[in-house]
């Protein structure tokens, strides 16, 4: 449905999107995941023809978005990060304009407007000025605009940002519904959100695709990067002694608290983190030492990024690592100008 080939975008000297290639099939909900500034919005703007690419190609339904712009754009409904609304109009007037611009006329236009207003549930406010609507309703009007003309692909840029929890749940449900009829691509920097809605996830960091997988598989790698955290009232030496008898512990960080308790963070090289937890629990029990607290700290999105961008080579998060990361990043950004081919290779490894 959408084919992105070697897409690259420079803003002056700044490389925002670096040789991005992927393919999106019809009929799924895709999630674009990445921290702020990773190039999500830039990529989406290029996929919808709002922004030109420095080099590379985007094909939508077989039409090139830059060469055959109008034909390609007819297949896409796009909601930018900030919904592009005319504040002094009512949702109905606004949707009529967008519908006409998409080539709808007469009865077909009216039918479409009624349909999308029903779909996003804004019947109650269709005659009110958009400027007077709440953020959640504005977002819905923005989505309604994208739905007009029944496009095959709907692209939503951070559709839940700035909404309250109830509104977020409603918008997520709406997106899931849309996924049954359309190909939906949405971007987010919240992992749990993408996990909840999407069937496939693309992770972008520093303008590069670092992972393209189903949520379950990513979850596994997420768990692998997790830490076991526990608190005990045993002495530090005892703790070290017990831990030395537990297999698959790759790194330990101990910390003595003020009230005499010891808290520890463990990293494991085993893929089954629960098995390690179980062994840990019994190891303490055997020595008649109490575990006052035992929990798993899932790796944050940032950790995954670091892991994915460095090819999963990260061990214990020691003090020296952030420096290494920074050094490598500056190195890679200085290379990117002329060595894009090297970038592609490492990218393929990770995918």
């Amino acid at each position, binding site marked *: 449905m959408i084919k992105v080939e070697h897409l690259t975008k420079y803003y002056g000297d700044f490389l925002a999107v670096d040789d991005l290639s992927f393919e999106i099939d019809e009929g799924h909900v895709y999630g674009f995941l990445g921290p702020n500034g990773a190039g999500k919005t830039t990529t989406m703007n290029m996929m919808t023809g709002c922004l030109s690419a420095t080099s590379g190609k985007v094909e939508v339904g077989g039409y090139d978005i830059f060469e055959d712009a*109008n034909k390609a754009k007819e297949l896409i409904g796009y909601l930018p990060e900030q919904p592009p609304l005319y504040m002094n109009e009512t949702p109905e007037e606004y949707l009529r304009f967008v519908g006409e611009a*998409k080539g709808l006329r007469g009865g077909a236009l009216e039918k479409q407007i009624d349909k999308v207003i029903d779909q996003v549930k804004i019947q109650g406010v269709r005659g009110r000025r958009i400027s007077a609507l709440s953020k959640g309703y504005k977002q819905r009007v923005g989505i309604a605009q994208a739905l007009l003309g029944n496009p095959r692909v709907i692209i939503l840029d951070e559709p839940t940002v700035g909404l309250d929890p109830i509104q977020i749940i409603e918008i997520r449900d709406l997106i899931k519904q849309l996924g049954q009829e359309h190909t939906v691509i949405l971007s987010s920097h919240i992992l749990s959100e993408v996990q909840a809605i999407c069937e496939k996830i693309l992770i972008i960091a520093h303008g590069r695709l670092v992972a393209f997988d189903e949520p379950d598989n990513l979850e596994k790698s997420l768990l692998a990067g997790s830490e076991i955290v526990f608190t005990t009232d045993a002495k530090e030496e005892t703790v070290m002694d017990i831990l030395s008898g537990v297999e698959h512990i790759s790194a330990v960080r101990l910390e003595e608290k003020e009230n005499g308790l010891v808290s520890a963070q463990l990293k494991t090289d085993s893929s089954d983190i629960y098995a390690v937890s179980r062994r840990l629990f019994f190891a303490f029990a055997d020595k008649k030492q109490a575990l006052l607290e035992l929990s798993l700290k899932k790796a944050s999105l940032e950790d995954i990024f670091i892991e994915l961008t460095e090819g999963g080579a990260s061990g214990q998060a020691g003090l020296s690592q952030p420096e290494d990361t920074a050094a490598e990043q500056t190195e890679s950004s200085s290379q990117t100008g002329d060595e894009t081919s090297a970038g592609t290779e490492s990218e393929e490894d990770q995918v």
Partner: protein
Amino acid sequence: MTAVLKHELRNYFHSFTAYVFGAFLLAIVGIGSMLYNLQAAVSNFEYVLSFGSIVFVVIVPILTMRVIAEERRQRTDQLLYSLPITTTQVIAGKYLALLVVYLIPLAVISIYPLIFSQFGEVYLPTSYGSLFAIFLMGAALMALGVFISCLTDNQGLAAGIGIAVILFNYYSVSLSEYVSSTSFGSVIALAVLILALGALIRYLTRNELLAYGVSLVLAVAVCVICFVDASLFEGLLPAIMKQLSLFERFSAFVNGVFDMTAIVYYLSVIGFFLFLSVQSLEKRRYN
């Protein structure tokens, strides 16, 4: 394009803009008719139009300031880019809407000569010739206003620049009598013009090489001509200022000459600025 046209028209008539524009134009032409045609009992309606033309300095920028600037401020330009319409269609739709807003008060004004002709001898060809010319002149000023609106996302700034540029254009003929008419003065003025052109090219294309190249070629050309025959430049600056004046060309019609070169000039100005507007919108796609 019709979608943009309808949308713009709805916008103008939902807000005060169209009404304020029409009211100002009608008021000043009304006052002019009262002074010239009724009180002084002059039968030439074209004098009224000539008198009223200064109102364009204010009302055109007020009408055109929001055209693109407001889209950019509201971020609705993103919507226009993502819709299956071209930037040419967007500019054309918006410009046609402006013309419609402009034609409504003009249609009312076009009845005046007919009314006056009931009470005396009115030479209608000059009246309607001037009316046609003032339509084209206003249309050219609007194209200029649209372009200025493309340059910023601040409506007030767009209006301010618009007023300044049109006011300068209005007085450029009077000013031209005071500027230096020596060849040295003209060369300086040409140098400034070449720099401005270079800056414009650089802004629109982001291609520094092209901008410097064009400026350099023109500068060399001016220098060569200057060395060959400096007298060619004498009186050039005042001549340029006269030639660029949109208002000066309108006065030919008032004097009873249906000047085809002026019509071609107005149409070229419209084409030029609408082209620049489209380019300016396209350029935003590259940033």
